[in-house]
């Protein structure tokens, strides 16, 4: 589930829950705790848990840095630097999980105390267990490390450079006719240390960045307004994502971006497009062939493939909140469940360079990898972690365990789930040429799906009518509704790898207490035939 970012006093830009404590910019460049000290702190917790009767323990020492630069029009509204540091200890005692976390744990006594509390919780809850936790074996890796391959650390870029970029973007939007513009640079650095009673001591350094804006234009006569959000993607990169390079641009009806994002160019298009949207034709409801750009399709993949193929959901562990799944074990066991058409190959991965999910090891010390979920339309696998993977007959975890903070317990989270590019050479213009009555959708918009992932409704940022192989102009008030299996079976073509791009979210929500996770979804433009489109305009 993608969070909507609603709340009392929510910002104009969607999806930015701000968590953590604010700190000064120079604090973000301090190196954090020395690895040798982290090992000592972890060992204290491992030993304390063992002496209290834990049969398995893992310790996560986390320092989470975030920086937000928030602007509107000609003003910097806020520069927020947050740092969150603490230790979370997870144990199995009497066959039951227990977890405790302590803020600002810098001594061996602190981490030992967390370990003891985790054991106490496990023992108190063991009476509510029917079967002891069955953990897939995992070899220890000793002392190892992994660093995201970034070129320019966002936290080392001066604030002034970031402010100048955003105010330049805002100025361009206003000069091109927008009434309002909000823009934000959102940067994350997770410094994570993991140690377990299996003998792993893993130090990792992860970077993410997400530049976004929202442009609003109002028609003074009617009072109607239209917005257009940025076509950027959140990525597992450094500040180099904001370097523009012609080879990262996908030109066409509007320019889209791959590994480098031209924020200034995109906002100029956005300002012009909000005016076009105000004058666009309201869509006539009915069946259309949809041509979906990767900047849009990522969210449909996320909701209708990523979530239903999470094994914990399938088994019922998320029944009280995020829901269960239509993709039940019997469908997988049959080896012939038609998730989609033959064109549909979907895979999970935690390794793709530049993706949000990429790490060396997951949050329970499992080395990451890539694996198939749907092969030529047939359901072949799920996403599972150490305490559940035996249920699908696997001997080791798939390495997709994650906690969003030292203070949260790790659990199964979505890997990057992507639609493989088509194998036959096919460009977007060649795809559109064959469509008689269709809509070409760019960018993600409104989204909603049921708790078993059958029925969904999606909107977008830009809708173009396709008539007899030609783009015939812009539409508005568009949303499509479908059913997951029907939708993926209506997929007739996927463009080739030249068009493959990542989309994604920083804020995939799951679990109780709710945690967020950052995840990417790749695809090339794909065509879906005969999808039900509704008109969303209302009169009040």
């Amino acid at each position, binding site marked *: 589930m993608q969070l*909507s970012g*609603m*709340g*009392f006093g*929510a910002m104009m830009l969607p999806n930015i829950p701000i968590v953590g404590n604010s*700190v*000064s910019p*120079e*604090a973000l460049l301090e190196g954090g705790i020395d690895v040798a000290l982290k090992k000592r702190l972890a060992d204290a917790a491992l030993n304390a848990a063992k002496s209290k009767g834990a049969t398995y323990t893992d310790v996560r020492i986390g320092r989470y840095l975030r920086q937000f630069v928030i602007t509107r029009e000609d*003003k*910097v*509204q806020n520069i*927020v630097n947050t740092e969150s*540091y603490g230790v979370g200890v997870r144990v199995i005692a009497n066959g*039951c*999980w*227990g*977890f405790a976390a*302590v*803020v*600002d744990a810098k001594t061996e006594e602190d981490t030992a105390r967390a370990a003891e*509390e985790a054991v106490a*919780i496990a023992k*108190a*809850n063991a009476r*509510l267990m*029917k079967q002891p936790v069955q953990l897939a074996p995992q070899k220890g890796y000793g002392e190892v490390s992994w660093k995201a391959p970034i070129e320019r650390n966002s936290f080392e870029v001066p*604030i002034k450079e970031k402010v100048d970029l955003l105010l330049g973007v805002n100025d361009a939007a206003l000069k091109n006719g927008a*009434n*309002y513009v909000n823009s934000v640079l959102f940067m994350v650095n997770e410094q994570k240390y993991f140690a377990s009673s299996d003998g792993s001591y893993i130090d990792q350094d992860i970077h993410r960045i997400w530049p976004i804006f929202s442009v*609003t234009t109002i028609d*003074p006569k009617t*009072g109607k*307004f239209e917005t257009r959000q940025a076509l950027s993607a959140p990525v597992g990169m450094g500040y180099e994502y904001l370097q523009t390079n012609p080879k990262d641009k996908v030109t066409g009806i509007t320019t889209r971006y791959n590994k480098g994002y031209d924020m200034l160019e995109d906002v100029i298009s956005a300002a012009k497009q909000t005016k076009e949207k105000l004058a666009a034709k309201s869509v006539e409801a009915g069946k259309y062939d949809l041509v979906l750009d990767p900047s849009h399709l990522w969210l449909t993949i996320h909701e209708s493939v990523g979530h239903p193929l999470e094994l914990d959901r399938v*088994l*019922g*562990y998320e029944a*009280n*909140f995020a*829901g269960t799944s*239509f993709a039940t074990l019997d469908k997988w066991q049959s080896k012939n469940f038609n998730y989609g058409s033959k064109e549909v190959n979907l895979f999970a991965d935690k390794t793709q360079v530049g993706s949000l999910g990429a790490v060396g090891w997951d949050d329970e010390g499992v080395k990451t990898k890539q694996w198939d979920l749907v092969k030529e339309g047939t359901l072949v696998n799920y996403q599972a972690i150490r305490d559940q993977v035996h249920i699908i007959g696997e001997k080791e975890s798939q390495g997709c365990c994650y906690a969003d903070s030292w203070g949260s*317990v790790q659990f199964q989270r979505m890997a990057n789930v992507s639609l493989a590019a088509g194998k036959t050479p096919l460009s977007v213009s060649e795809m559109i040429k064959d469509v008689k009555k269709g809509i070409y959708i760019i960018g993600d918009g*409104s*989204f*909603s799906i*049921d708790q078993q992932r*059958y*029925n969904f*409704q999606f*909107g977008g940022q830009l809708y173009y009518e396709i008539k007899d192989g030609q783009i015939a102009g812009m539409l508005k008030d568009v*949303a499509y*509704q479908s059913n997951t299996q029907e939708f993926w079976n209506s997929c007739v073509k996927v463009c080739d790898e030249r068009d493959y791009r990542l989309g994604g979210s920083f804020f995939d929500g799951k679990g*109780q*207490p709710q945690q967020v996770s950052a995840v990417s979804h790749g695809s090339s433009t794909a065509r879906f035939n005969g999808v039900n489109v*509704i008109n*969303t*305009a*209302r*009169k*009040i």
Partner: protein
Amino acid sequence: MAVILTEAEAKALLQKVLSFSKADECEVNLLGEIRGNLRYARNEVSTSGAMTNKDISVQSSFGKKVGVASIDEFDDASLEKVVRRSEELARLAPENPEHVGVMEPQQYIKSNGYFESTASITPDKRAEAVAKSLELSSKQGLAAAGFLEDRKGFTAMMNSKGLFAYYKNTNVNFSLTVRTDDGTGSGYVAKGYNDFNKLDTAAATKIAVQKSLASKGAKALEPGKYTVILEPTAAAVLLESIFFGMDARSADEGRSFFSKPGGKTKLGEKIVDERVTFYSDPTHPDLPAAAWSGDGQPQAKTLWIDKGVVKNLSYSRFWAQKKGVKPVPNPNNMIMEGGTATLDEMIKSTKRGILVTKLWYIRPVDPQTLLLTGLTRDGTFYIEDGKIKYPIKNFRFNESPIIMLNNLETLGIPERVVSTESDQNYILPPMKIREFTFSSLSDAV
């Protein structure tokens, strides 16, 4: 030092922080909290834990240049360091023309949201409360997945003009989904309280069990416009888009439902049925809240919609100054007035309609009309001639809460509910609405 400070301890700590300040103005916010939870699924415990957290946040300003820094270590050297850091950041920051200085000392009304019963919860007490629930669902061969979470904490603030505020509270939320073994029935319940003694997990579980069994064997109805009875849990997630959207600046700027052409707003205008009134009130005995906002503004009883008319929009201190009006802080809670009808009476008076017990995955479709989409979940029932006839398959809806509150038939007796979208607690009545728009069917149970 303890994580949960008393009012006197908080005051002393804040005074110490301010004593280090060399800025024109300084404002300090302080937080301490302890949280614990028990999560279960498939009739057994899954992941559970506890967390302690604390933070001190310092805002320093030199004219219109502002910096904020925070720290979670409370020794003297760290406190001085965090003040210096905020001052350095303020010197580096560009001027923010929208910055408004700190407030003069304020008087706050008293509100009590702290209960020892909740503050003293132990892992054993949590396990005991959940055991009572599991016993009932297991007995009937049903699969239970639930979550019990408690929090005790305090917030406090002080500024260089001498303003001081303190609020300590506790909270416990319990939610449960009970599914039939064959996966054809599902029922839900959620309860939120400040006082753990008010939580009866067994009584709550009976509601979810009843809905789960009653929702087995659902039939499909054609999508379309129906009279619906929304239980408060279902109403909450629709009304939130109004509660969260009452910002004067967005309305003045022409980019909200509350905007009107020509730069005007709907303030003072009747937008929904005259029986609709909602207000915030930090002293409400069933939904206490802090009597101050994060910047120190006092919270008092505030009418937002009165007899269908927009009475107030929230004005930040900057926007209020610009518009020459009094600032109105965002509310800390929300209460909707109701009627006298019980849910049973509302069903009895319905010729043909649908009882919606919960809604799910609510997202905005059009901010201009507040059009929302989402689905029914965990128990939807067809009503004919005043009786529940049979369970029905879930629907997707596309509806605006504004249109809905104009199509109001009856309001029932208000109760405290937990939003399944935001986890916020509200007091809301069940409501009967005519011509509610369902747009497609879902196979989900």
